[in-house]
């Protein structure tokens, strides 16, 4: 374990060094696509096109974009039910995601999963999972499989901060550290587990410190700064890939919307003033300002980017609306597979 002790001190990751202007453009575009896509999700939900539970990622886009930028194409991602932004950042087709949200046959899960369960095997996107904490052992299991095969991929396991209080989290992190599994456990600390503030749920408020229980490397990073997220994730990914050592990375962010589409944005468990204070650090604005100051984008460039992204989202909407409902015979499909061996 001597190697694993390298980065025990938490340090907020530094700024934009290590990215090219082109990479920053890609990150900006990714975040903007997530934002515009989900704004239309909210509209579609209000119109009844999307049903069920729908948890928006607005405010947290830098986490998905930055973390995903640290991965290779053959790495794995597993995540929670708040999965639209991460799916887009990984490169799932906006059309297939929107069709899934609309419950249509061209959806990325053939209309069987919905908002909380986006999957794409071809991109190693192992799904949105709906039981808080339940997927964390799965993430460790993907790491186990990588190690079993002697591969050098990494599994990036997203979770919300409320997960750290579950038994599944504790059991998975203990085994991941014990067996040195190549997993990055990335906590998106958006401050609230549904309506319960972190301080009302966790005995430790600096939750990256939980990793000390497992003798696991740990760090925290500003989740509104996409470059910092990317940089911190890269470090954790490098440690997983080259040292087969897991990391607990706490990314401090904030959601600008309610827990899901069915609750108020503010007023009960958090104040409007608190929300407005956090919205001053909109992750898209943070990067845009950095890029503007560096002369990498101007207002016209931003407007053009926005138009491009909006067109992609409109195309996704049109595609979803045109996609047929799943055929009734698909009801009984995908329960079991025919065994081939």
């Amino acid at each position: 374990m001597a190697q694993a002790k390298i980065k025990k001190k938490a340090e907020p990751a530094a700024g934009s060094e290590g990215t090219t202007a082109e990479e920053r453009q890609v990150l900006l575009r990714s975040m903007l696509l997530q934002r515009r896509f989900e704004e239309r999700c909210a509209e579609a939900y209000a119109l009844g096109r999307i049903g069920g539970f729908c948890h928006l990622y607005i405010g947290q886009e830098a986490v998905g974009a930055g973390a995903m930028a640290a991965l290779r194409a053959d790495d794995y991602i597993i995540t929670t039910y708040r999965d639209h932004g991460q799916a887009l950042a990984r490169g799932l087709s906006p059309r297939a995601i929107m069709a899934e949200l609309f419950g249509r046959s061209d959806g990325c899960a053939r209309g069987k999963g919905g908002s909380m369960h986006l999957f794409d095997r071809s991109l190693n996107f192992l799904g949105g999972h709906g039981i808080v904490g339940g997927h964390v052992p799965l993430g460790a299991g993907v790491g186990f499989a990588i190690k079993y095969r002697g591969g050098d991929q990494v599994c990036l396991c997203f979770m919300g901060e409320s997960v750290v209080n579950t038994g599944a989290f504790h059991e998975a992190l203990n085994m991941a550290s014990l067996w040195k599994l190549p997993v990055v456990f990335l906590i998106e600390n958006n401050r609230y587990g549904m309506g319960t503030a972190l301080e009302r749920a966790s005995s430790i408020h600096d939750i990256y410190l939980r990793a000390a229980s497992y003798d696991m490397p740990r760090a925290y990073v500003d989740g509104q700064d996409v470059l910092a997220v990317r940089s911190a994730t890269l470090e954790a990914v490098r440690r997983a890939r080259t040292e087969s050592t897991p990391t607990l990375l706490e990314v401090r962010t904030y959601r600008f919307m309610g827990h899901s589409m069915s609750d108020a944005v503010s007023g009960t468990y958090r104040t409007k003033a608190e929300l407005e204070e956090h919205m001053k650090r909109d992750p898209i604005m943070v990067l845009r300002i950095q890029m503007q100051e560096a002369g990498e984008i101007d207002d016209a460039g931003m407007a053009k980017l926005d138009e491009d992204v909006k067109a992609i989202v409109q195309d996704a909407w049109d595609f979803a609306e045109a996609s047929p409902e799943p055929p009734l015979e698909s009801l009984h499909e995908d329960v079991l597979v025919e065994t081939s061996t």
Partner: protein
Amino acid sequence: MSTVTYRDALNQALKEEMQRDDRVFLMGEEVGVYQGAYKVSKGLLQEFGEMRVVDTPITELGFAGIGVGAAMVGLRPVIEFMTWNFALLAIDQVVNAAAKLLYMSGGQFNIPIVFRGPNGAALQLSAQHSQAFESWLAHIPGLKVVSPGTPRDAKGLLKSAIRDDNPVVFFEGEMLYNTKGDVPDEEYVIPIGQAELKREGDHCTIVTYGKSALMAVQVADQLEKDGIRVDVVDLRTIRPMDVAAITASVRKTNRAVVLEEGWEVCGVGAQIVDHIQRDCFDDLDAPVIRVHQADVPMPYAKNLERAAKPDVAKTIAAVKKVMYLPD
């Protein structure tokens, strides 16, 4: 044919499948260095090493989920629960993950995993260690549920379970591990979903599975001395259930007793009776009777435990009742 214990039959199945396919690994508490809490995994650590025979901390929820994650990306885990009583801690991974991922991913992620371990009562282990959970998991679409009663079935079905591309829940019996039976020397598998007639008769059908199949055979042998000939339908698999085997037998005998270790309410037997009433309504000469555990947590005291469990005498009484014979 060789005479082999149920324990060794399972051990052979694990060993042969691990030799056959290097994606297969065994994970659970005490499976390696300790050689298995019930010695089912004896010798496997020595043959396959610690990457494929993995001792875990006491974390049913955790290691069951690690198995599911590994299966998502192409390995074929065999997850051993020291008993199914402890597996309740892991039921989220079995029900919400393993059984659901294929469906909610629209067919993209099948989960080739086996969850196995002893189920049901042993002797005087009292309430928390003497439970039969088949009905809980047989309730869940997306799972296959297997419960063999003989060494031959245990080996052939475990091999099929490991080769299956779906999650398979495999119920063994603590009281079965030492039982002996004939096992073919040559390679064989037994398909999941096929019942077997363990005794043939035309007076009454006993439908059962798992450990109770042994009891049913004893019942049949004893009744035969009185000239009562019983068909023993050993389901071997609970989901998917071989309904055709049940109905074929009941159409022949016109009478049925359903025997299981579990509790009565919403038990597997209730499902069997439903198939019989739907498919054999006009064939029945008497109402179907169920034999099962008393509707109480398992007591410790010997006499109370005996009173709570199904046994040969209770099953014989049930057969006589459906035949309208005096006790």
